[in-house]
């Protein structure tokens, strides 16, 4: 059974030097970065590092969260602007244009949970930001803005933002939902929790959620789930130190990448298929698996 399968590959390269566990990662799309692909990482010590993927060195480190951990990072569509969310209960908007590293704006938050924010871009200069309140987790949607949120009671809820009401709610986990991602092409999403189960659910025309499939993992604890931009594969960040890669359509396990020596906190995909994972062991590993066609 095991014989015909090749051993899993090692990481393409490893970024070291955050000096602190890596909480979140975000690839800056190449178009925005002017041909110099960048990776943002947010660490527990409150720093945001900007890595050049060409030189594999830090370009800059942003210190704006007063030593409290950075939990979420996202560049805005118009480029040169970065949103960062920290445990200091602030959400900062950074201006990175022309080498500047200044905070342009901040939003005060009232949640101290794990929940990450989410951004819905509606045009070049118009975007909508969802920030966590007392509830829990994130994300995005369709013509009418809909928001998917994962809660600590293990449920995933679909909100209609304009009418401010719950469209649908499913309890698909027994443990708190830690991360979810949604594929709007296939109208399917996946969520991971502190438990052993990875749940795939689908959204039908009546905007109601249904559990489509579940997948049992060897070890409990998924910190983040990310679907690759081409909707072919997805990766999970496991508390068991491993990154798992699945085939998105069939949920067939494809690889178990055991490189980190502590919990993996985040996984992110670049548009060209590069996979980055940040871990409690203060390292960021970059992988190149199943290249995008």
């Amino acid at each position, binding site marked *: 059974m*095991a014989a015909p*399968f*090749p*051993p*899993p*590959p*090692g990481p393409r390269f490893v970024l070291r030097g955050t000096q602190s566990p890596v909480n979140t990662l975000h690839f800056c799309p190449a178009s925005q970065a002017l041909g110099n692909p960048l990776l943002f990482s947010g660490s527990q010590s409150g720093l945001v590092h900007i890595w050049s993927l060409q030189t594999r060195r830090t370009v800059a480190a942003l210190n704006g969260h007063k030593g409290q951990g950075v939990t979420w990072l996202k560049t805005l569509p118009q480029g040169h602007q970065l949103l960062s969310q920290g445990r200091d209960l602030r959400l900062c908007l950074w201006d990175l244009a022309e080498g500047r590293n200044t905070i342009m704006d901040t939003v005060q938050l009232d949640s101290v949970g794990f929940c990450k924010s989410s951004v819905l871009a509606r045009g070049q200069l118009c975007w909508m930001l969802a920030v966590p309140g007392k509830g829990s987790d994130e994300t995005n949607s369709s013509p009418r803005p809909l928001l998917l949120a994962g809660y600590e009671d293990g449920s995933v809820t679909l909100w209609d933002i304009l009418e401010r009401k719950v469209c649908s709610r499913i309890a698909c986990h027994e443990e708190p939902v830690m991360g979810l991602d949604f594929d709007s092409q296939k109208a399917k999403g996946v969520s991971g929790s502190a438990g052993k189960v990875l749940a795939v659910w689908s959204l039908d025309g009546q905007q109601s959620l249904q559990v489509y499939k579940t997948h049992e993992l*060897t*070890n409990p604890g998924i910190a983040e789930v990310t679907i690759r931009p081409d909707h*072919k*594969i997805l990766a999970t960040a496991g508390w*068991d*130190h*491993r990154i798992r890669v699945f*085939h998105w*359509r*069939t949920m*067939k*396990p*494809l*690889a*178990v990448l*055991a490189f980190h020596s502590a919990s993996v906190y985040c996984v992110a995909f670049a548009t060209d298929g590069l996979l980055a994972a940040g871990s409690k062991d203060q390292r960021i590993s970059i992988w190149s698996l*199943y290249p995008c*066609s």
Partner: protein
Amino acid sequence: MDPALSAVRLTVQEAIHTLSSSEDVGHILSTLGTLKRYLGGTEDPALPEKEEFTTIHFSAILRCLVSKLSPGWLELSPDGQLEQLWESFFLDGPPDQAFLVLMEAIESTAGPSFRLMKMARLLEIFLSKGRVAALMEEQCRPQTKPSFPLFQETLLSKVVGLPDRLGNSLQQDNLTQFLPQNYFPLLGQEVVEVLKAVVNFLQGGLDCSVSFVSRVLGKVCIQGRKKEILGVLVPQLTVLTQDSCLWQRVCWRLVEQVPDRAVEAVLTGLVEAAPRPEVLSRLLGNLVVKNKKAQFVMTRKLLFLQYQHTTPMLQSLLGYLAVDSQRRPLLIQVLKELLETWGNSSAVRHAPLEQQCYISKAILVCLAHLGEPELQDIQDELLASMMAGVKCRLDSSLPPVRRLGMIVAEVISSRIHPEGPPLKFQYEDDEMSREMLALATPGPAGACSSETGGPSLASVVTETPVETPEKTVDSDVPSVQPQGSDSELDSDDEFIPYDMSGDKELKSSKEPRYIRDCLEALTTSEDMERWEAALNVLEGLVYRSPEATREVSVELAKVLLHLEEKTCMAEFEQLRQRALVAVTVTDPEQVAKYLTTQFYGLNYSLRQRMDILDVLVLAAQALSRPRSLQRLSQHGPPGSGTLCAPALASSQPGNAATPDWQVVVEERIKSKTRRFSKGCPRRELTGGPNEFNSVAGYFFFPLLQHFDRPLVTFDLLGDDQLVLGRLAHTLASLMYLAVNTTVAVPMGKALLEFVWALRFHVDTYVRRGLLSAVSSVLLSVPTERLLGDLPDELLEARSWLADVAEKDVDEDCRELAMRALLLLERLRDKLLSISSP
């Protein structure tokens, strides 16, 4: 005197005179023509002149004709008329006399000569014209002459001995037709012809006796040509007896008339050649009931005294007993006796494995043929023998013997108590066990022909074998199907999964980091996860911190030795063993001392004692290996095996990269470097001291000290012979691993003494161990020391080995003894080559 008869005599005398003296062709031809008249078939067969001629004068004429045979004489008539006439006398006259004269003449003619070849050719024609059938047919008619038995005896020996006699006379020039592989099938065909004639006679109301044919058959079979003759005979008889009662009766008569001393040979041949029990039954009738000798052969000799026969043969033999109601009591009797033998502990110990297998098969075939009521009658006896047999088989140290016991017991119990809960042993399925279980299921032919309860019997027995596959299929279905349907939909071939075997459950938080923590976790911890984690990492920890291990080595060994499986751990036995080996390797002296004394300790189970032996061997192996495993496994993750060190290095990508890189660099240097030395560069083997050298004694000698002193709980020379066998094997391994050490000589001496004390042990496994011990002594002790210090022991061992190689019942023992003898021979050759120059 009858004038007609005296006229015949006169004619014959004249003819003989003419033949011997005349050179005139016309005269000779006319004389022969006159004589031929007496043979001719046109006249009335009852003619007295003809009778007189054929019985009294024919041989004389033939002898005279033979004596005249020469190229010149035959050429007297150039058109070949004379030759033709000459031959016709032999081919048309009474076949028995012609045959005897021919054989006599061939045997008395010396060397390669025209006459000899001529007569050999004539005999060939004689055979091909079916004259032998005519000859035998003649003997089947009622005879009255007083000298007849003697004559028949001569004829018999010549007919059967023809290939030998012709081979002797003709030497190199023998004709292919006379070779035994051609002659006996021909003879078989002739026998069929004779029997056909006999059946015709009987249908015509004539009296006939087949006793001559039976004697021919018996004699051929005794000479060991039963395959050739019966290979032709049996298939034809199978067809002929199918619908005809008369044919069946002729066959029964044929077998009944076989002389007593040939019965065994003929019956064995028939049982071998008969394809099915029904055929055998048609050929033999109720012979086993009527004939004591046949009964002995069929029910005892073929079953108990021989074991070389094939399974189909067993099936047709026992099937034959089962087919007829008169013979069924014999089958039950046979089953009882078989089981008695099967349950006899002395038989289990002394009979070779093949025979035990044969008897077990016979039992299963019997059971398949017997019906429910018949088995109920003898239930108690069956049960008693079965219990005895199972007990002594399960005691055996050889796995195949144990398995035989389990299989037979399962089948018997399922037949005796079809309703009760089935007896089920755990044994590995192999070819033999499958074959045996298949035997216990009666085939379609057997089921139809058995008279009582065919269907019920079949249903009962098939239940057990069918059940198991169904279960496994059921349990597989749910797990396989979803995956299968998925992969069918999956058209994305580009995503080939990577190996995910390393995806195990993580227990990192509980892993102890130090030896003492491990020790504490294993002894006192109530937390099972921690306990398991400790056992998992222990081996790695021991190798990484030898200093710390040495401080607590004996204590650790003690804990591991007494460790019991508290949870259902996947590889508990291996983990414990590997950890013990690691401890022993790290601190060999202390731990080996401890383990060897515990081997003869009071309160240990056999399992623990055998574990001790295994650990000692594995540790010795690790120590004696040129490249120490210790250094290799230091890089490895904790808990992985010592014995898979190379695989382990490659599992870590970081480590694997370094050697690759070094290899590449070395290759480049090599390609750029010119060497002026001769020959290709040789790879240097890294040498290192044999670490087993200094501690071999601690491993070895204490094990030898107490084997003959029984304890209350442990008696090596008594019931615990399995451990004794393991001990012998262990000592052999230790001896072998101690090659090139200084202590090898005293070790060898002590081991040979040990072997000498136990050399006549009844248990096969023990003997195997002893024989391999001798071999390893011969391999490990240097030649000159062997001859200098141990010459007497070697001489004694040699005679013992020769004896075992010749007489031991076990095949493996014989082979091991042969190997040891070969080693001894090599030793002698080496010595001779040293001393001669």
